[in-house]
């Protein structure tokens, strides 16, 4: 039998021995993102190592940089919670001055991007720095103990949005940073999910190969924060796509009239109900006693798709 070539590069930039939980979703994101980045750099500049990483505080920064060890095999700088975008801009400007070829990867969690680092991100995109900003979205501040962020979806339990007699958990809709980034009219904005790893890989490669800023928001389930068993991480991310709760799209140059969708059903009818996605996760357990909250979540998902220009039907 002929030897088959893997669809992703065998170069490694994310070493084992880091302190992430078993079944960590964001750890898969880190591995695939750096591999895709190196492949894009090799195609563009002929050097697979022509990139550096600026990493905001967050789960992946903490587990990969347990002093005195590091899990990274690429130049990596840990910066404060709010300024991954600003530091990545600075590194990029310095590289430009030095005449060094390559691209900078800025990484932040949903807290470090949607809440605390939004200003630095906006500045970075607006100044058109040659940086890819990767937001791994695990939908709460998981590192500090599961506090809500503005990216937490409606109805989710977190320690600061506990459900009870007068509360259904998080009571506000999810903020879509990808749409905020696209409003800066940057060359490339995409959402992805580790439920479709090769789609994420392709998008990361595309983001790394465009000239100018790019933004990728990727869904990365968190085992302790979502109250899921460790082996279900990817299954949950897959269900998020199949039930329509997580859209996969690409927006180029802020053109909201020509959004490209991936894995969108042709007739706009999703086959699997959102309940399938919710049932696997302990953070949505309380919703099954409150059907009106699930209905409200469905209305919000429909509204999100309507904003993206699609009429959908949810079973």
């Amino acid at each position, binding site marked *: 039998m002929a*030897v088959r070539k*893997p669809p992703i590069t*065998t170069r490694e930039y994310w070493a084992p*021995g880091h302190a992430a939980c078993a079944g960590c979703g964001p750890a898969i994101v880190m591995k695939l993102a750096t591999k895709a980045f190196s492949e894009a750099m090799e195609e563009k500049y002929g050097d697979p190592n022509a990139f550096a990483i600026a990493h905001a505080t967050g789960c992946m920064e903490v587990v990969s940089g347990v002093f005195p060890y590091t*899990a*990274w095999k690429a130049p990596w700088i840990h910066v404060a919670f709010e300024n991954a975008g600003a530091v990545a801009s600075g590194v990029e400007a310095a590289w430009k001055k030095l005449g060094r070829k390559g691209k900078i990867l800025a990484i932040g969690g949903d807290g470090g991007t949607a809440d605390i680092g939004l200003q630095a991100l906006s500045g970075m995109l607006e100044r058109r720095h040659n940086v890819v900003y990767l937001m791994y979205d695990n939908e709460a501040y998981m590192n500090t103990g599961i506090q809500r962020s503005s990216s937490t979806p409606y109805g989710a339990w977190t320690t600061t949005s506990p459900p009870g007699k007068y509360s259904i958990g998080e009571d506000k809709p999810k903020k879509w940073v990808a749409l905020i980034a696209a409003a800066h009219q940057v060359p490339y904005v995409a959402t992805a999910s580790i439920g479709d790893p090769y789609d994420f890989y392709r998008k990361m490669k595309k983001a790394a190969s465009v000239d100018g800023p790019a933004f990728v928001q990727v869904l990365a389930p968190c085992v302790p924060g979502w109250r899921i068993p460790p082996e279900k991480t990817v299954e949950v991310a897959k269900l998020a796509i199949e039930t329509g709760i997580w859209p996969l799209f690409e927006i180029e140059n802020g053109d909201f009239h020509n959004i490209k969708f991936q894995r969108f059903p042709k007739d706009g009818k999703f086959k699997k109900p959102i309940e399938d996605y919710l049932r696997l996760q302990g953070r949505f357990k309380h919703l099954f006693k409150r059907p009106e909250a699930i209905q409200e979540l469905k209305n919000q998902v429909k509204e999100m798709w309507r904003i993206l220009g699609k009429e959908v039907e949810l079973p």
Partner: protein
Amino acid sequence: MAESPFKADIERVQKEYSEKMTPGAIVYIPGSSVVNKTGGWRVFMPQFNREKCIRCFMCYTLCPEPAIYLDEESYPVFDYDYCKGCGICANECPTKAIEMVRESK
């Protein structure tokens, strides 16, 4: 049997790492976390059935450690020094070539 892609890193960190504090507490050895053998966290252990494998690379793509690398024929090899036993590989395997069994020591 193929070699782990991290073999050189393990050797380097064993040879060069010292307890002495570096200026600015900079970590000079890339990928030095390989000294932490996280395999001790494991309760369930993936067991691989080579006959059933169709080499779709799903386990190789999705291992968060990464504790799976490829041999010369592109079959997955499991690195039990680092595998935390999460079971994503067994759950996502389309032919159920990977089975999680309780480990006894």
